[in-house]
């Protein structure tokens, strides 16, 4: 299969795809503490999601999504990667 690693031609560059990144362990702990929740109570995202595949997040990871909002400016969102 052809790989086009050299170019920046990935869906991550698309205007409609918000920035996704794997949240660090410490940040996840902080997040769960802040909302007094278990990991399972986070919103979910499938590991088969194109963005998740692209950033190579694994099941159990938490991804941080930076979305821009018309009213809130930038908004942080978190999702747990599930199978």
């Amino acid at each position, binding site marked *: 299969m052809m790989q086009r690693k050299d170019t920046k031609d990935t869906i991550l560059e698309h205007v409609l795809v918000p920035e996704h990144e794997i949240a660090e362990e410490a940040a996840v702990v902080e997040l769960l503490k802040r*909302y*007094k*929740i278990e990991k*399972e*109570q*986070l*919103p979910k995202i499938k590991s088969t999601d194109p963005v998740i595949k692209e950033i190579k997040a694994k099941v159990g990871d938490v991804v941080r999504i930076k*979305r821009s*909002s*018309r*009213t*809130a400016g930038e*908004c*942080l*969102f*978190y999702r747990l990667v599930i199978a």
Partner: protein
Amino acid sequence: MRTKKIKRIRFGLLSPKEIREMSASRIITPDTYGEDGFPIERGLVNQHIGVIDPGLRCKTCGGRMDECPGHFGRIDLEAAVIHIGYAKLIYKILMATCRKCGKVILGEEDRKKFLEDIAEYRDRQEDISDIVKLVFKEAAKKDVCMYCNELQQRIKYDKPTTYIEIDEEKRERRLMPTDVRERLERIPDEDIALFGMDAKNARPEWMVITVLPVPPVTARPSITLETGQRSEDDLTHKLVDIIRINQRFMENRDAGAPQLIIEDLWELLQYHVNTYFDNDIRGVPAARHRSGRPLKTISHRLKGKEGRFRGSLSGKRVNFSARTVISPDPDIDIDEVGVPEAIAKELTITVKVNERNLTMLQELVKHGKNYPGVNYVRRSDGRKIKVTASNYETLAEELEIGWKVERHIRDGDIVLFNRQPSLHRLSIMAHYVRIMPGKTFRINPTVCPPYNADFDGDEMNMHVLQTEEARAEARMLMAVARNIISPRFGKPIIGSLHDYITGIFLLTRGEKKIEKEITLDILYKIDVDGLAAPAGTFDHTSTPYWTGKQIFSMILPAGLNLEFPGKTCARCITVGAKCEKENCPRDAYVMIKDGELLCGIIDEVALGSFKGVIIERIFRRYGEEVTKVFIKNAARLAINYIKQAGFSFGISDEDIPIEGKEEIRIEAIREAEKKVEALIRAYEGGELEPLPGRTVDETLELLIMQELGRARDDSGDIAEKYLGIENSGVLMAKSGARGSLLNLTQMAACVGQQSVRGERIKRGYQGRTLPHFKPGDRSADARGFIRASFKDGLSPSEYFFHAVGGREALVDTAVRTSQSGYFQRRLINALQDLEVKDDGTVRDTRGIIVQFKYGDDGIDPSKGEFGKVVDIDEVINEAINR
């Protein structure tokens, strides 16, 4: 009362054993009542399974008619039948299990994984149906059982309840329900979990019925007709059929009848049991009453809007409610509702008697059932006494602290008011009662927009709140005044409309000089702090006058500062010019300083619902009470003035002088038609250049549409010129009160092109729209261009084209409403349990986060200013101006 929490609900199938155990009677005769008029023993309405006749006692529990809830009976079926509700699942299970050993045909590895997945999902309280689907899919693929090496055969499912096995030589063999049942019995308990079922509560073989539960008589009571004849419930009729066939099956089998006859009877029994559960199975003739009416069986009781779920559980009829036609009353407050006395006498509020209200309540009881009175009195011991003409005096006397009194509703009581379809939360708001003569509910017309109500026969519902908590909640959250700003778009949804806008527009337009007497008339019933100083004196009489703008200013709160372009603004900026603001030649720029209207005409943008710039500002700065009063005052001011000035719109207001008509005919329409002809000639001569990305035909159509569109716009402009700004129609359109310039154009000048799916009309006969035209005619006339105006009247072919175009609009709205209704239901079901928690997150009932911050900004659109808590610029402006 102790409250208990439901931890979980378990669903399962009734096993034959359970059915037998709960059965109070084995029913064997299809008959109901005997010669003596008493229920027949072992019959379908026998006294062991409940009583519906007064005087009789239940032979199971000994209860009388209203005491015994009824008991299930049973019919032991001579031949097993498939349960229609599980027919599809049975098929899937048959396909997934071995025909010999009954195991699910999955390797150990797969089996384990699926079981683990299911357990995990269950743990997370998530839907397991996707996994189960996969189990069925994987297991059905296998040809050979890996446990007993049996070769599997294909099974064909013949709707609704027939299974046929096809062997390698394509020979077909029908699996009778008993065969099916035997196979299902062989499935080991451990494998049942793979189907998402629990072997303890739902063994698959229970999906094949051997014992049929018979619902209690109380669930299918017979009714006595006027003739004294008994008419049994449809379910009873169906059960009669089942018993009859069951009987015949047994007799034939015992007599050794040929296999063919036995199978026919078996099939018939299956049919009756099928239709007993569901009488609208596709491809199966419905079981009918002797009259030809299809029988209403079990599924009808559950399904659909009127069914048990949507009709009796999710929603039901309620007490303390009333429904009647609504009509307008501009003299009541916007948060009031006029209630007819007849309704007020039926609806009550329960009040507990204490030392402070004792005398007042005694006074009420003394009125008896006459308004304002009392319907019931409840003594301290809980006994409820109906107030009648003969006992009200003694009751008033006896009334003491601790009793409860159900008094009629009266002025000032808070009630909920609702108009269906309740599409948003503003469809139910709290109003204050005002008892009025007449038979309709009265509302101030300014609250029509949130309910989407008008007065062409609309009906609305009213609910009387029964507890102090409910009343407090309604007052704090649902009161009309608290919902002036829509949570949907953050702008006022309550505001002036129709004549109120016209009135205020006329009042504030230009420098009207209004003498004192009329000024006072206009301000009639409006609470203002005295009359402002007159703007000047008339030259000839030297009596004082006030201007319209000045009168309007009198209802504005002091200290209000506001500037905005009104509806008549020509948006000079968009064409590169500078906005002249207060020097606007059209007086379209509204400027309010310290509650004084300095310039600009007040119109829809300032006061209308959905826009209401002034209303919005007043609401945010001065709060709901001031806004409520302002909206009402603005409406009253407008009516008072329009009554003074006079305003009407009639058919003659669409008249255009003959020279205007000529101008429209020649300069707009004839001109366009010439251009269209030229285009067609160019097309036919092959000279038409196609537009990029379009064919020549498309180009022609596009250009013609453009040309004819322009023709209508031009005729509209000409009409407007001749009608003039003083024309009532133009006035209403310009002020935003009602109608548009397009409406006026169509009435006075030219209706214009009719279209179907955005194209000119081209359907009908081959190559032409009507036989009046030549085939292939592409002219304006032949393709649905209407050059007449509604006032002039349409020609027959024009009339036809208009009907063609109108039909599309009609169908569109019909389709749209039904689709949006269904979409609404689905959204509500998906979102109804979400909650904003006090940490700002939005969560579902399981505590799973849906949004980390409500709306990502945590702001209620009806409270904030476009995503911010406050509008900083405005605060600064406000400070500077002070």
